[in-house]
């Protein structure tokens, strides 16, 4: 048995079934949130905004809104997926199963990323009800979406292993990722910021994600697409290294 595909499939299905139990809330929540953003920022404020870089304001915020939900959802779902067995004790079965670390990560991260991509698609579809969206680079849009989902689900997996309590699970998505995303140019172009803040903003890694994603939609971004890709792969490499270390040392998984 070189690859335990049945084992991977069992975990993947188990995780999707867990999402399935909260299917409606999982998918209706992003749809409603997106609608609210469109009512507030699109209709109320957006009507007073000019186009940004030749893109109508309503369309401009769509890529950022997708990432706003997707990044936090990716971290929450992936971290919860691996934290639960640790918390309930059922991790014994996972550890005693004939699964390689790669297979374990593939199953958990794959399931969480699947859900993240679904949520992003729901947001895109909801936005489409309000405005017209023409995607300039559809291939890149899908590729970046998958890349972000996988990267942040890996990040979530690491957090789930690290966390000692439910509170710690929430800390990083709520206190770090959400603010960074908000300040990362979801609702504005960083060119609109006053000088010093523009420089400060460039230290926010989420700026590069949103900029790159927006480029795939409209062909323009705050920073060059190459830089966005480099930052994303850099973060992906960091997360992979962390996961590798976890399994190498057994950190918080094995005594």
């Amino acid at each position: 048995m070189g690859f335990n595909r049945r084992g991977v499939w069992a975990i993947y299905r188990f995780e999707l079934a867990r999402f399935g139990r909260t299917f409606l809330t999982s998918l209706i929540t992003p749809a409603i949130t997106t609608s609210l953003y469109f009512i507030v920022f699109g209709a109320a404020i957006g009507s007073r905004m000019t186009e940004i870089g030749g893109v109508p304001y309503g369309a401009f915020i769509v890529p950022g809104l997708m990432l706003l939900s997707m990044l936090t959802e990716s971290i929450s779902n992936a971290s919860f997926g691996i934290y639960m067995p640790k918390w309930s004790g059922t991790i014994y079965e996972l550890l005693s199963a004939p699964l390689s670390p790669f297979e374990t990560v593939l199953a958990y991260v794959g399931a969480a990323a699947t859900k993240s991509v679904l949520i992003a698609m729901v947001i895109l579809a909801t936005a489409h009800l309000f405005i017209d969206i023409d995607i300039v680079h559809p291939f890149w849009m899908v590729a970046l979406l998958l890349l972000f989902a996988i990267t942040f689900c890996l990040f979530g997996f690491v957090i789930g292993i690290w966390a000692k309590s439910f509170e710690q699970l929430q800390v990083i998505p709520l206190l770090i990722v959400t603010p960074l995303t908000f300040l990362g140019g979801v609702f504005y172009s960083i060119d609109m910021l006053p000088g010093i803040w523009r420089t400060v903003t460039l230290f926010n890694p989420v700026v590069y994600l949103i900029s790159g994603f927006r480029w795939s939609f409209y062909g323009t971004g705050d920073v060059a697409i190459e830089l966005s890709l480099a930052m994303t792969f850099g973060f992906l490499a960091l997360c992979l290294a962390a996961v590798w270390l976890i399994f190498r040392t057994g950190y918080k998984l094995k005594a």
Partner: protein
Amino acid sequence: MPPVISIQGLTKTYASGFAALKGVDLDIRRGEIFALLGPNGAGKTTLISIVCGIVTASSGTVSADGHDVVRDYRAARTKIGLVPQELTTDAFESVWATVSFSRGLFGKPRNDAFLEKLLRDLSLWDKRKSRILELSGGMKRRVMIAKALSHEPEILFLDEPTAGVDVELRRDMWNLVLGLRDRGVTIILTTHYIEEAEEMADRVGVISKGELIVVEEKSELMKKLGRKQLTLNLAEPLVAVPPELADWAVTLAADGNELRYAFDANAERTGVPSLLRRMTDLGIGFKDLHTSQSSLEDIFVGLVSQKKDAA
């Protein structure tokens, strides 16, 4: 026939500095029921956890059915089923879903007929659609057993299988274990009850403070463990043991108010009736009497000192 599990020089020192295992060597024979007997904290669960891949050994090697449990973990783990001590289950899953999940996790193709038989054998078939959180503690333990057996392991570990289990389940569990043994499954169980080891096992290993003190056929060990003590509360205190009772090697205690006699409960002649007769003949009256079995701790102390004497 090569052993089904071979453990050599196994040690485990936890990050806290606690040495849970101090060099354990043990071979488990194919098809036997092996009881690992020891008090709490002796290292039983650590030993099992290392074999199953849950804990990393500090040094030493373990092989299961000829496969090293670290280097060749896939092949080794496929052969092994584990029922842990704690009742840990996915509360929101149905019985059927959780058992199917376990089978898949171990890489086995779907086999509904096998799982149905398994659940029927464990009296779980009627509960297959129930969520686990709705089940009683005994039923949950049956689910844990079903999960461990779902991938048809050749080696089954039962960690404290009867802790907190009612009489009926205990009986069912023994029948199940004996049934598995008849099918050629090797069973390793841990317990801190001598009676449990006595009732079930073919061989018994006694572990204490991270060391395997003795591994023996059950019948041999039970002889050693069969020491009992008779205590007689005398009507009148004695100053010295009367010479007429010298044959029984009795001792006086509690300022001469108690007479004590150690005997082998498994022996054909315990010497108790003749002792009592002789005392009546001598006119030594007693108000009360009781016998006590040495506690497991006493026995461990005895076994450890024997081992030291031998060394």
